[in-house]
């Protein structure tokens, strides 16, 4: 059986579970909407200020929101010892991880689809740079969030305060990626500088962390 088929089996299961429970999507959606709306009312920024701060607000909202979903990613597998069944299955552990990353990527992307138009309206945004580059920055940034988040959620799985622990580990590790996401977005919105360097940095971060996490996941999964 090919690796891709096993990844697809895991992914299909995760999508089906989410479709039925809507645990991750609902939590993320309400949380990110609240952050965007609250910041908009709290600062009431002008159009120029909006362009400067929008990148930060967008990515911090997504980071916080995705943390709520990432915390649930593995909790679902712990319920009824399903994770033990996963560990017993003679299929590669990295396929399970990759499927979780893809599922979380899709969930966060769905949130972005809803959040994006609202964000533009609330902050009265109009990109002065090359707006189409956001089509690259958003998936690259989302991948950085979900790869690390999925991995560190698995790492903190067997701890008592896992919901507390995940942000404590995830946020510091995500700082380089967050910086690249925010700077790229600000560069695109203001047109004041070329976001290319930040985008390359983000792509490099994605490649390095995805590779590392795929290699280390089996050890994490079987840790006692």
């Amino acid at each position: 059986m090919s690796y891709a088929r096993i990844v697809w089996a895991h992914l299909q299961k995760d999508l089906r579970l989410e479709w039925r429970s809507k645990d991750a999507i609902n939590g993320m959606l309400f949380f990110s909407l609240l952050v965007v709306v609250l910041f908009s009312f709290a600062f009431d920024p002008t159009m120029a200020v909006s362009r400067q701060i929008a990148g930060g607000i967008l990515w911090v909202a997504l980071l916080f929101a995705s943390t709520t979903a990432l915390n649930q990613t593995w909790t679902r597998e712990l319920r009824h010892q399903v994770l033990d069944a996963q560990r017993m299955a003679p299929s590669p552990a990295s396929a399970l991880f990759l499927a979780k990353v893809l599922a979380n990527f899709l969930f966060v992307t769905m949130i972005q689809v809803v959040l994006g138009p609202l964000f533009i309206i609330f902050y009265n945004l109009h990109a002065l740079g090359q707006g189409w580059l956001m089509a690259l920055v958003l998936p690259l940034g989302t991948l950085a969030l979900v790869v690390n988040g999925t991995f560190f959620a698995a790492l903190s799985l067997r701890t008592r305060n896992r919901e507390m622990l995940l942000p404590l580990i995830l946020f510091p590790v995500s700082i380089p990626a967050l910086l690249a996401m925010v700077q790229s977005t600000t560069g695109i919105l203001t047109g004041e500088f070329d976001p290319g360097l930040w985008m390359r940095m983000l792509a490099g971060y994605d490649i390095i962390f995805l590779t590392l996490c795929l290699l280390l996941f089996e050890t994490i999964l079987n840790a006692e």
Partner: protein
Amino acid sequence: MPPAANAIELHEVSKLYGAFAALRKVTAEFRAGLSYVILGPNGAGKSTLLRNLAGLTRPSFGTVTLLGTVEIAAVRSRIGYLGHDSMLYDELTALENLRYSARLYEEESLPAGRWTPEQSLEVVGLDPGLDRPVGKFSQGMRQRASLARVLMARPELLLLDEPFSNVDLASSAQMLRVLNQMRAAGNTILLTTHQPDLARPIADCFCTMQEGQIVSMEYFERADRGAAFHASEEPRA
């Protein structure tokens, strides 16, 4: 009749959780094709023993040889493990759970006579067409669905941790019928329980554990097996 090959060999196996020894220098052999019912009070080490055999935890000391190898990962597809819990997703139907599980097994690693998810559910007396999610199953149905998941790959070695707990008599009887078929087909079964009378019909040996050690292994002669042996082994812990 010569003794059957051993499905499991434990040599000086200990499992420590901090200062607590859940298993203490357990040395034992479990013969292939027999059903072992493991008895003992709570905390005797029954579940820890099964989790070590399933490869879900590693012994702190000692060696476990399973189906002729110490590399448990290499024989995972030949082992079926049923834990305390159902190991099924509540949101999915029994058939969806089993179909997902089946897709994680490589075709070539499975025996030719393996069951499809539908067949496996029928074997345990569940309707494959039932569109109710497992979360809405009774405990008995859930356990049977869980057993169906384990049986699907027709594992040579079945490790069942208290499969009859909180299960009504009808469901227990159904599960026993299936296990008896598996036993008759030559599969090795290790089953922990607090209900020895319930498990007696399928037992070839009562194995008693206390404080992390196997203190007795009492084999019975079984008319339906045709042969055999009658022995009572001294503890080798």
